[in-house]
């Protein structure tokens, strides 16, 4: 369970990025974080993994408060997939990228190999094992980036704009994959269709504050609310 309580985060230049943000996510649920550019979605994700620490309020992951002293354990529990897969894939081969986390966790090479092979198979990207990330398509890079987090088997996965850089087919594969991932997920996205299909809860952020929360079906078709939050409501088909 994730609890975010009255969280306020500001950047070193005093820009207030999040103001009094609160919500909870139960175990196994998927939460969509939506909002216009600059609403604070990515900041909130960085706060969840302790890259940014709140000036006020608390974030707890399965009862453990996100704080400087708990960061190693928090990062074992929460895996983050960055918006740009090129930031996540920095090793010479995809195999090494997927093995990076488990190796840092101190696992033996046999265990690391088993974890990587299993993840590659789950993501259906075993053929990319020995390839460099520089030569992959956007969809392949995205799958590999998610794989780097899955090999560490975290209880929570946060994804920043997972459908950016993807063509329709790769996006469809991603939605299928998100449905198969059993961990608790927080997905920051502009892609309301993806959020509608892959998430059972949504929080709309606007100017660093929670503008609304509820089910995606309730929120995303509400034209007045979406317009007030500088978003485009979905049309009922």
């Amino acid at each position, binding site marked *: 369970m994730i609890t975010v309580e009255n969280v306020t985060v500001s950047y070193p230049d005093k820009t207030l990025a999040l103001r009094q943000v609160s919500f909870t996510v139960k175990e196994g649920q998927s939460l969509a974080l939506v909002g216009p550019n600059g609403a604070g979605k990515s900041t909130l994700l960085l706060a969840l993994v302790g890259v940014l620490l709140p000036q006020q309020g608390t974030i707890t992951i399965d009862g453990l408060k996100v704080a400087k002293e708990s960061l190693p354990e928090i990062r074992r529990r929460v895996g983050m997939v960055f918006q740009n897969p090129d*930031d996540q894939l920095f090793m010479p081969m995809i195999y090494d990228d997927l093995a*990076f986390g488990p*190796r*840092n966790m101190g696992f033996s090479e046999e265990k690391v190999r088993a974890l990587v092979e299993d993840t590659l198979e789950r993501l259906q990207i075993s053929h990319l094992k020995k390839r460099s990330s520089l030569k992959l398509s956007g969809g392949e890079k995205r799958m590999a980036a998610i794989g780097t987090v899955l090999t560490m088997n975290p209880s929570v996965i946060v994804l920043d704009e997972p459908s950016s850089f993807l063509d329709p087919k790769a996006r469809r594969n991603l939605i299928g994959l998100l449905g198969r991932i059993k961990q608790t997920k927080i997905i920051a996205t502009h892609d309301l269709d993806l959020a509608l299909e892959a998430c059972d809860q949504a929080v709309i952020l606007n100017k660093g504050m929670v503008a609304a929360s509820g089910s995606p079906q309730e929120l995303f078709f509400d034209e007045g609310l979406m317009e007030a939050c500088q978003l485009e409501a979905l049309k009922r088909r």
Partner: protein
Amino acid sequence: MAVRDTPIHRLHPLIKLLASLGFILIVVSFGRYSLIPMIPMVFCPTVVMALSETPYGLLLKRCALALPFCLLAGISNLVLDTGTALTLGSLSISTGLFSFLTLLFKAYLSVITVLLLVATTPIHVISEAMQRLKIPSLMITLFEMTYRYLGTLLEEASAMALAYGLRSRQQKGIELRHMGSFVGQLLLRSFDRAERIYQAMKLRGYPAAHLSPTERKVSSRDILYLVLVLGSSLIFRALDITGAVNIIERLLP
């Protein structure tokens, strides 16, 4: 390349690291005008390249990346060191040229040695070997970061150069008047990108303070490799082939 199965790839990483460090130390210990005595030092890298099935062309090309830095460092030798080292007929070769070429040769041999190590050993295994040698963690971090960010820098530079080339009039490289802002932007962009990569590394448990529990023992084959590399290099260091060259010179008409 680092995961092939050749006699060199199968060697113990600690031994490969020690052999490489030892070889580089012997190379840099040559005097500033020791161009000819250094020639036999190409023996070890050539044999290792062949045994590890590393493509010669690729390695030499990558090595060439280090040359501009050596040129910058050694160019002053040509101007400041003007003594005569050798006279071939009416042509006299200055000591400056000799020291400049020696510097280039040393750099080339050292870079080839490091590239061969990286080409035959996965990077995390080299880091572990460095940890076992009790090399300070700051140095290991610097080594890992340099390895990772070099690629990032090149990637950013090629993306920027492509964007520039597509909108420039002549489409022939970067004009000198734009070079300052190009390099400045490149550094700023790479800094941002490096920051995000570092975050991604930290979120996946970096830096790990522990060594792999499955460390294997050093075998007699590993020891033999170390003795052969360092032994032959020390012999070449002690053996000055300048005398042999002089004899050949005298025998020639």
